[in-house]
């Protein structure tokens, strides 16, 4: 019978949610100190058909309920395996890597900071940077916008430096996403530190988390 895999954790005591996606029971399997949470799926249509949003949220609820108790490595939705034998084979093959990752991330969570420009001069299409601008002007404007976001990232990182285990960034066209790895017990202090940072009027910061530290798993 196919399985929907939710996440992995260390084999520490944990309260397992009873029901998962589409009300299927949540089960666990252990291999070499690693525990995998999954549901047996007897009707794939219930997983992959509408309402998909509710299904994805139910998937998240299972992971989050375990993540509130200990560090997890989530699987991406929807990760479906053929049967429990395949799942065991997979865990057997990767158990040492997963064990190392979970040990490293134990007690750590990921906070995300999305740095945005409230109104991009590159998108407005008027004024000095409007439709008549040259390519050089466009590139200069873009560079200026990116510098502003990068400067804010430095300021935020500096504010929260006491709590940071690691900091990563991922730029996009008109924004910058920052990922902070912090101890689970300093989340409130981290938020206060971020809140105390001066943010230029034209920029904004959206902070979310705590999340499982997926952005800091490079071993997989």
């Amino acid at each position, binding site marked *: 019978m196919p399985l929907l895999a939710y996440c992995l954790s260390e084999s520490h005591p944990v309260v397992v949610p009873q029901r998962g996606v589409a009300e299927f029971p949540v089960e666990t399997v252990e291999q070499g100190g690693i525990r995998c949470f999954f549901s047996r799926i007897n009707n794939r249509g219930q997983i992959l058909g509408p309402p998909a949003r509710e299904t994805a949220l139910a998937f998240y609820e299972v992971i989050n309920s375990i993540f509130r108790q200990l560090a997890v490595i989530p*699987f991406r*939705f929807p990760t479906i395996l053929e049967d429990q034998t395949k799942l065991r*084979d997979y865990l057997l093959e990767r158990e040492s890597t997963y064990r190392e990752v979970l040990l490293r991330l134990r007690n750590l969570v990921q906070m*995300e900071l999305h740095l945005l420009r409230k109104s991009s001069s590159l998108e407005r299409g008027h004024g000095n940077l409007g439709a008549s601008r040259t390519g050089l002007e466009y590139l200069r404007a873009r560079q200026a916008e990116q510098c502003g976001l990068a400067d804010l990232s430095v300021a935020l990182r500096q504010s929260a430096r006491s709590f940071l285990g690691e900091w990563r960034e991922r730029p996009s066209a008109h924004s910058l996403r920052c990922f902070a790895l912090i101890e689970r017990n300093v989340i409130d202090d981290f938020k206060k530190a971020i809140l105390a940072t001066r943010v230029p009027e034209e920029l904004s910061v959206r902070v*979310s988390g705590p999340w499982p530290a997926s952005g800091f798993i490079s071993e997989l």
Partner: protein
Amino acid sequence: MSSNPNIVFTGSDPSDETSLLDILDHVLNAGVIIRGNLVISLAGVDLIYVGLDVILTSVETAFRQMKAPALSPKSQS
């Protein structure tokens, strides 16, 4: 918590639309991907890879497209 108007905190409450987007983004774009023949197909479509390609626009649309026989899966790495 926020008194700085330029800094917004979003929680993990799915009833909050902003949080919902964050949650769906994480569920669909973060996490381990199992590659290879452990991933099964549905209607001849590799679920994981198609999901990664189209999921950013709309979850419902993505799942509809997953089921569409016209879609051809990307080759696995």
